[in-house]
């Protein structure tokens, strides 16, 4: 078993992926990236050399690789207090100015956050007035997200979060359970567009009133976070909102002074300058 990986070997991997496939992991945070590579090596029973060879020789392997590399651990209504602030402060704030608006879930992973937002909008009675864009660079996880189907064993935690969110009903009202899996009501995804998008190399593709990117940029180094935040700034309408993870901050980025803190505890920012 490989115990540790040299920085030089990590560089060989990121350079190969970039030159061959165009995905840029060169500015990812080192320790978590290393753990992901170690995990893949262990899971697929590879060495560094055989991993490099596989990445080089079999293009079909790249999607499987990306699926394992990206962290796809998430919850519905993660940080229930965040979702209460969305419902009680942020979205009412947007509604003051617009009857219809766009939301971008950047790095949507398996879709738990998109489901949460769709349920929230439904309970606010504005589900049909909002367009949601959910993006990720991992095409396998996007396919999973589209099915809106999850292992039933995950639902305990999700239900607990929903109760803390103080939703109107029960999470159970939104899904059917069969053979150890639950599938959410497809109507929730009426206004959701899933698309592949890479935050690092991807273009700006729309303008939004609200962008959620929680616990995604923690996998980037500070320089890359700075670049991605510039893209978010550009993708927001003036007075639009950006929500990041509870342990992330805008303090040290270049666009910091173009945002105002809308809610410090839940890390929601409002764009005030173009």
């Amino acid at each position: 078993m490989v115990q540790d990986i040299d920085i030089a070997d990590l560089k060989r991997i990121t350079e190969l992926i970039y030159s061959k496939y165009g995905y840029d992991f060169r500015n990812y945070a080192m320790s978590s990236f290393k753990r992901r590579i170690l995990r893949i090596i262990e899971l697929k029973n590879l060495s560094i050399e055989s991993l490099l060879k596989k990445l080089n020789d079999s293009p079909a392997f790249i999607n499987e690789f990306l699926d394992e590399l990206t962290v796809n651990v998430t919850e519905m209504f993660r940080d229930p207090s965040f979702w209460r602030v969305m419902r009680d402060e942020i979205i009412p704030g947007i509604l003051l100015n617009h009857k219809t608006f766009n939301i971008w879930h950047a790095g949507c992973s398996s879709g738990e956050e998109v489901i949460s937002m769709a349920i929230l909008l439904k309970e606010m009675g504005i589900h049909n007035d909002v367009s949601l864009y959910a993006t990720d660079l991992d095409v396998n996880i996007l396919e999973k997200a589209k099915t809106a189907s999850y292992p039933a064993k995950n639902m305990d935690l999700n239900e607990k979060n929903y109760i803390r969110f103080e939703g109107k009903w029960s999470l159970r009202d939104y899904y059917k359970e069969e053979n150890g899996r639950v599938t959410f009501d497809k109507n929730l995804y009426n206004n959701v567009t899933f698309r592949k998008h890479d935050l690092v190399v991807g273009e700006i593709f729309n303008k939004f009133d609200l962008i959620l990117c929680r616990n995604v940029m923690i996998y980037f180094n500070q320089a890359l976070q700075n670049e991605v935040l510039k893209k978010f700034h550009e993708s927001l309408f003036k007075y639009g909102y950006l929500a990041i993870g509870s342990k992330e901050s805008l303090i040290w980025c270049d666009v910091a002074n173009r945002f105002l803190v809308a809610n410090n505890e839940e890390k929601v920012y409002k764009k005030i300058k173009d």
Partner: protein
Amino acid sequence: MGPMSRFSLDNSYKAVVIGGSAGSFQGITKILSQLPKTFPLPIIMCLHRLKHVRNGFVEALSIKSVFPVTEPYDKEQIKKGGVYLAPSNYHMSVELGNYFAMSTEEMINNSRPSIDITLGTAAYVYRDKLIGILLSGANRDGGLGMKHIHDKGGLTIVQEPTECMIDTMPKAALSLTKIDHVLKVDEIVSLMKELDKHYK
């Protein structure tokens, strides 16, 4: 030989990292409350905690602590005089360049934050300039992290199992790697005070 010389410390250390779980709160509070005011090193703590209680823990630890305890932000620089606590529901790594990085990767040993991750990454960055302390706890998390610290030449300390409310955690470390000192909390406090003197 007086008690002051038993640890053979010097002033080369760069950080102290502490892991703990069930039954460690009292011990950690005691250590933080009796630190010398000039304590020269950052203290990095990873303690198992309730996943969905984001607030309260850091405040409880701060009450008696000599230094304010904070839950760092992702990419926050690690500083002397800082006492840092891994936030709930995140793994906390130490990165080359002396800053923290958070992650939401899978739980390890049913834990997030994982003590192994914090200790292991700190060992990678600080190598033989690290002191690792593992306190009372009910699972095996932290043992592997202590092994990493020892393998890189750092100093390893566990709480005396007979003093622990639950001794699974220090015992796991003792079975996995060489532990330099098995100490009661009061002796850990003495070690911290002695360490402080080496930096004057």
